[in-house]
């Protein structure tokens, strides 16, 4: 999967540590998701979507898929 997490985080001027704190995960987890090394579970993906106020498909999409 590819995602827009880094862009959304940058728009809010949050550091990875800020985002990690809001999601109750480690900074390494945020970094791994942003770099595409780790795909989050559905509950975490929902938490991310809720935090940014966007549907999941607007943040995550399959490799090569079009973004919303």
């Amino acid at each position, binding site marked *: 999967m590819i995602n827009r997490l880094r862009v959304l985080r940058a728009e809010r001027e949050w550091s990875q540590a800020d985002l990690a704190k809001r999601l109750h*995960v480690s900074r390494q987890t945020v970094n*791994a998701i942003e770099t595409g090394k780790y795909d989050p579970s559905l509950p975490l993906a929902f938490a991310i979507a809720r935090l940014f106020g966007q549907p999941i498909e607007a943040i995550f999409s399959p490799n090569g898929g079009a973004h919303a």
Partner: protein
Amino acid sequence: MECSPNRYSKRSLLLALLCLLLSLIVGIARREGLVPPSLRWAAALLPVLPMVGYFVGLGQWLKTMDELQRLIQLEALLIQFGLTGIVVMAYGLLAKFEVVPNTGIADSWPWLWLLLFLGWSVGQLIVRRKYR
């Protein structure tokens, strides 16, 4: 009342340390020939209790982690399991062929813990690098 994982882990650690202290005392008593035959089973198995506490604490520690950290631990444990199994099997076969000394389980079990710890450390190094 439910304990928080950290509080639970601290309690497990304290109990494990207490058992270790008791084991030390029993070990000295055994060396001096002060353990009566009726208590040999209990005295011999006393050092096992801290290990039980260790794994209970480890389980609680895992519960405090997020999903990626748990995945890292799982993959590291898989490497540890594989590495330990391969080394033990290889050593056992070499001992059968009389290439290395055939150490009995009574003498070689401490090495198993060392091997498990080393395997886990190697696993951590490999898996953490993967998700960096």
